[in-house]
């Protein structure tokens, strides 16, 4: 955990309750998850009640209260991607990483998520890793995509 970095983010918004979501997003971005201790610190420094912080942190899918891997892998399961074979692609990715949707592998390297339409219907099926779109991914190409992040 990059404690110094997290402290910096929190300190920059000290005493500003309205910055709650912004702060949580930044911490989620650098740390990939929100440990309870960090949420307590956010609550103190931003002067937001802890139950409010907890409520916000559990409400949005962006935030994770459990550790995530360093690469976030999203496989689109929107209607178009599904029709273009995303089901098979997701199964392949599951096999390659060795985890189910919502889980992280033992090396803390990849976290797998799916989504219902991630935006590039005309280029589906797609995998998004750390925000970068990999389009027209055949199941056989999934390995290459993941390996480029190894």
């Amino acid at each position, binding site marked *: 955990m990059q404690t110094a970095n997290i402290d910096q983010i929190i300190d920059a918004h000290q005493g500003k309750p309205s910055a709650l979501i912004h702060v949580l997003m930044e911490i989620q971005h650098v740390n990939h998850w929100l440990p309870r201790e960090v949420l307590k610190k956010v609550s103190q420094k931003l002067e937001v009640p*802890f*139950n*409010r912080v*907890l*409520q916000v942190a*559990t409400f949005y899918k962006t935030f994770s209260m459990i550790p995530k891997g360093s690469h976030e892998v999203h496989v689109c399961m929107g209607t178009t991607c599904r029709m273009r074979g995303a089901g098979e692609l997701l199964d392949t990715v599951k096999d390659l990483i060795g985890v189910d949707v919502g889980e992280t592998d033992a090396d803390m390297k990849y976290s797998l998520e799916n989504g219902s339409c991630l935006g590039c219907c005309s280029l589906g099926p797609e995998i998004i890793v750390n925000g970068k779109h990999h389009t027209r991914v055949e199941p056989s190409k999934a390995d290459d995509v993941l390996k480029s992040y190894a």
Partner: protein
Amino acid sequence: MSEILLQIDGKDVKATETMTVLEAARSAGIHIPTLCHHEKLEPYGGCRLCTVEVETRGRARLVAACLFPVQPDLIVRTHTPEVDKLRKTIIELLMAHAPDSFELLDLAQEYGADRNRFDQESSFCLLCGLCVRYCNEVKQKNAIAFVDCGAKREINFIPEIASQECRDCKECFPLCPTSYLQAAYFLTEALAFPHESNAAHALTKK
């Protein structure tokens, strides 16, 4: 503060500017059913049982009375076939979660609701938010939180705070329309700060 004149169920009612339709109705002795409303708390509009029909400039629509501010010449109808049917459905939906809640059973009788209309999915919590809001607004202890979203939303006691504050307070207990809050508290207590509360343990010590 200026006085506002409106009509509720054909009765002329005087209200002040900051009042809601619910408050105005209650001050005139007109009953509107509520579940998530509490006098000491900010209006919440969570249960929608207080839905009434309001008419302004010849147009009628449905609003939540606990949130809707009074307006001059507003015409409010608290019991129309449409409103009653809506309330009946709301009660039936809530009863899928908490079929044995006394408050709901009373309301069900009043509105002829069928407790088995929807498949039961007993979560026992109606998410009325009374406990969460009472703890936040009146006691300012913030010991209970809503967590998660959508169908998975539920109330949680925060062990760190609950272990300090709840044992001598428990003022939220009588507010709960079901008994889920009590259950949630004792579960948290048993899991997170059990020592002193465990009566059996205390007895064996003697």
